[in-house]
């Protein structure tokens, strides 16, 4: 059952509130006891105290003015008279379904207890950089995506297949139902659980838990020729039975070669065979989700070359084609993660298209199938399949939706839309499945 972090304010007129606060700060046990006395008033609501918190006295009711004269007296070097508390505030977790009833209970008020972001101090938008903020559970991301309204209509990705072009997916844990089969290729689903592709599979399932996966592994070192062959395999299968319905692509380049020396490089030539093949697959009706990359200026990944870091240099090649859906990364608080690559894109300028959630405990993390390290699913590599899963969810609800229409609906329903409707950090905003569902067909 989803829980919400709240502050509970109890009517609590008492003398010696300052002393109680100090005692609780020195002795957690005293603080817990004081809190539990108050919690008795909300027994039966499933309220759980936050660990290591100290009950905080308030010296006026929410609707009343503070005791101005008495508080002003605190501004001297002499000991001031104690004030009686009017209320006491506790930090707690409450089941989502209990919130409304709890807030109506006499003598108790419920307030949000929202996470704060340490600002960079530059006046720029907040950014999540190393050390990163804590990761999110799958349930937190599902809530943020607003998938419940789609699930309640009976759609959870069933019947939809996502083709993951990556280093292979583990089929023991994830629902691999097919993919590339070749004489020298590993069997679909045979990758280890710690593979990058397995992480992508886990993240696809966040929004669309009943989706199926086709495994399209790079054969050996990932290169554009390998991706070309995998996209052809996708097209071959689509010609047979219309699957997979969409692809996830969490890879790209991390440096920009000189255009004079390498004019035909994938980054410079929009007619490179790979880009042409990607377009063929999209024209066949299969949306392609591509990661923006991890070479954002604020805290680029360690494998980024200086030539490919920051605005205008870090979203390129197939990842910046107009026809694909390019995904940046935000954390669970919708704060941009500082390594997320920044537009403008090098083919199409208005890239990324959207942002989705990364830093979640899906494949990786304590107790997760892939274990640790890393501490959680990460990179725009994780954000992209989260978005792809939303795409799959929507295709399951509205079969036959074209790639262009899907992209349009996702953009029109994004949340946290930047001023002017688009920016180089998060595109048109953060993806929201519930909103996009309402936009379609």
């Amino acid at each position, binding site marked *: 059952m989803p829980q919400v972090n709240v502050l509970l304010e109890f009517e609590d007129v008492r003398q010696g509130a300052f002393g109680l606060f100090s005692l609780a700060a020195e002795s957690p046990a005293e603080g817990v006891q004081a809190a539990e006395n108050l919690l008795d008033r909300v027994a039966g609501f499933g309220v759980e105290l936050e660990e290591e918190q100290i009950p905080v006295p308030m010296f006026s009711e929410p609707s009343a003015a503070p005791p101005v004269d008495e508080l002003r007296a605190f501004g001297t070097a002499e000991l001031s008279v104690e004030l009686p508390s009017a209320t006491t505030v506790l930090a707690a977790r409450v089941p989502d379904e209990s919130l409304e009833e709890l807030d109506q209970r006499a003598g108790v008020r419920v307030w949000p207890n929202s996470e704060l972001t340490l600002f960079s101090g530059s006046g720029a938008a907040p950014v999540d950089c190393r050390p990163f903020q804590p990761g999110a559970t799958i349930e937190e991301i599902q809530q943020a995506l607003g998938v419940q309204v789609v699930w309640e209509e009976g759609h959870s990705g069933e019947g939809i297949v996502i083709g993951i072009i990556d280093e292979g997916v583990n089929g023991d844990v994830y629902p691999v139902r097919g993919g590339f089969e070749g004489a020298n290729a590993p069997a679909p689903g045979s990758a280890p659980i710690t593979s990058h592709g397995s992480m992508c599979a886990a993240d696809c399932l966040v929004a669309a838990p009943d989706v199926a996966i086709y495994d399209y592994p790079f054969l050996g070192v990932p290169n554009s*020729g390998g991706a070309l062959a995998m996209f052809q395999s996708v097209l071959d299968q689509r010609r047979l039975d219309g699957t997979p319905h969409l692809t996830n692509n969490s890879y790209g380049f991390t440096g920009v070669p000189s255009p004079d020396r390498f004019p035909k490089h*994938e980054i410079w030539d929009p007619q490179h065979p790979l880009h042409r093949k990607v377009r063929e697959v999209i024209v066949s009706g299969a949306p392609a989700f591509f990661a923006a990359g991890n070479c954002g200026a604020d805290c680029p990944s360690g494998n980024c070359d200086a030539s490919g870091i920051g605005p205008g240099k870090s979203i390129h090649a197939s990842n910046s084609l107009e026809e694909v859906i390019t995904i940046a990364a935000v954390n669970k608080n919708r704060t941009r993660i500082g390594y997320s690559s920044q537009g403008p894109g090098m083919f199409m300028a208005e890239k990324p298209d959207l942002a989705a959630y990364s830093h979640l405990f899906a494949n990786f993390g304590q107790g997760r199938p892939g274990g640790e390290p890393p501490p959680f699913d990460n990179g725009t590599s994780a954000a992209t399949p989260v978005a792809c899963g939303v795409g799959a969810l929507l295709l399951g609800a509205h079969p036959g939706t074209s790639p262009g229409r899907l992209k349009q609906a996702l953009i029109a329903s994004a949340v946290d839309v930047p001023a002017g409707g688009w920016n180089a950090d998060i595109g048109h905003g953060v993806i929201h499945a519930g909103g996009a569902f309402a936009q379609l067909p």
Partner: protein
Amino acid sequence: MKWLLTTPADVDLDGVRAEVEAAGGKLEAQKAVPLGENEQVLYAEGPEDLEARLKAAPIPIQVSPNSELELY
């Protein structure tokens, strides 16, 4: 270096192989990928200036790099 060679789909493959080898490269065994309505992409290895070396070939061969990708 690894290369992708785009040729007409009905090209004489032996002829392409000979031109590539004369330019100091070789075709790889990987299956050709069809492209568009009547083209195909062949996989090759060759020197850095393979494109320049193949410019004079009697067979139309477009040379594109087959560059390494990174998983994000």
